[in-house]
């Protein structure tokens, strides 16, 4: 497994149900079909609407091959970090499982636990070294207004965690809805860190919640990026 391998993820941070555009669960399924994992952090709310939001968040993550956690605003930062790390590990474990299956006809679970822990050490090392492409999609619907500073700091904090990894990092940030009629807006194109200044000025809460279009847009960003890189460097090996 060379250094050219890349893990691709979308992280959706939302506080409610989508109400504009295509079904976000379908969008997550499409993204997962293209080798992208979709994780969702739901922010705790009240009432029946919140319950519906939690269920949708879970369905998006299930369809996107990722994880879902419902948390208080204060816990977004630690949760985002934990989820990114654990889902990278899951993706790598799937790859290792496929390799074990093809070589030995066994999965990691079939190995004695002591040998399993040696496999996990390899997975941990790969996780530290593999390249990561991440699109953070931020719900900026009207109800998010009070939570913007917390979300902004959480995204900056996530980037602090990912920047010190050995493997390279490319992170883009988008908000949904965007300005005017736009359903999404690119806050920051792919870069090796999060530009806090651009977050400060671009995050404004307004309007509804086009989660589906946001996931589609995030996936297209990753796929377009891949195409540009492939043309420049030749084909890469990807994990799905």
């Amino acid at each position: 497994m060379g250094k050219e391998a890349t893990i691709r993820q979308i992280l959706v941070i939302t506080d409610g149900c989508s109400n504009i555009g295509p079904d976000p669960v379908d969008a997550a399924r499409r993204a997962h079909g293209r080798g992208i994992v979709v994780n969702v952090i739901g922010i705790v709310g009240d009432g029946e609407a919140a319950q519906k939001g939690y269920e949708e968040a879970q369905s998006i993550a299930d369809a996107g091959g990722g994880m879902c956690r419902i948390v208080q605003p204060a816990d977004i930062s630690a949760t985002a970090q934990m989820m990114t790390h654990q889902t990278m590990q899951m993706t790598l474990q799937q790859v290792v499982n496929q390799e074990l299956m093809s070589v030995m006809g066994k999965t990691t679970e079939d190995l004695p636990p002591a040998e399993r822990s040696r496999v996990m050490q390899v997975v941990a090392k790969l996780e530290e070294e593999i390249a990561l492409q991440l699109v953070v999609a931020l719900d900026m619907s009207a109800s998010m207004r009070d939570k913007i500073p917390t979300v902004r700091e959480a995204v900056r904090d996530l980037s602090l965690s990912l920047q010190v990894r050995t493997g390279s990092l490319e992170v883009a940030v988008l908000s949904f809805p965007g300005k005017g009629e736009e359903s999404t807006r690119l806050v920051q194109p792919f870069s090796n860190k999060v530009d806090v200044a651009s977050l400060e000025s671009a995050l404004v809460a307004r309007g509804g919640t086009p989660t589906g279009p946001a996931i589609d847009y995030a996936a297209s960003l990753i796929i377009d990026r891949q195409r540009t890189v492939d043309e420049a460097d030749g084909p890469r090996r990807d994990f799905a």
Partner: protein
Amino acid sequence: MTDKSQVQIPSGTWIVGKWTGRRWRIRGCLGVGANGVVYAVDRDDGLPGAMKVCEGAGQVAFEWSLLERVKGARSSFPAPQQIDDSDHPHAQYFYVMERVGGKPLDKVWLGLRPADRKRVLHEIVAGLAHLHETGYAFCDVKAQNILVDSSDDMRVRFVDAGGVTPLGKAVRQFTPTSDGAFWGVCERRASAQYDLIGVALMALTLDVKPPANVFSQSQEQRRAWLNKAILQVAEPGWRSLLQKVLRGSVTDAPTLARAIQSIPLPKEPDGTDWSAKLMWGSLASATLSTACAWALYLRLI
């Protein structure tokens, strides 16, 4: 993958290891963490232990490998005992480690005398010094992860090795309030210094609670709060040591351990001295009155 539901296994249940055939009896739940549940168990031969159960085989195997790497007679972490699987639906993948005594530091801190606090912090840093020698950092330094045994001379043990990371690698598990990167004072990379800053932040936030809105503050605002909080530390020796650590001028655990040891203890109003004085005072007055009584009786005065 679904959100985990933390189903607890009832006490008295026997968990049978698939690979070893050993059996463990559940005695009770010790705690529920971010990635699993820990139970107090007794092995079939009576050996007490703590069983960590996680959802996935990977997480269990990974934590086990960390415990294996940091084990040793001088390690502050629980000694690993056994990793195994079972057919029990809520304990499919688990490992068993030494059951460590004591109470979490956040539960005992307020009741500790200055001399005990000094001793506890020294023990923590000494434990870190040993860990760093093995090439790893603790990373998830927090009061809930440190057990203090007041019945055993303030012995300090670390629990939850899930954050243990090779020096120089990215930190994977941390707690914001004791994470130097959250406060804007260092990188989130495993190093001796990262752990020492964690200890300083933990000690500081045990005494001075961070504001409720700290998560929406910018790093500049967080740093400003830290600087103010340090000024609230009453003892000048501690205050200047905390400042030094958070400024990054203490980079290794043995140096910090020596610095802690050399901090003078405050002159406290000592309860035992008081009662001793009272005792000698009453004894003296009793002797005097007895002497006077005898003198009067014998008509000497």
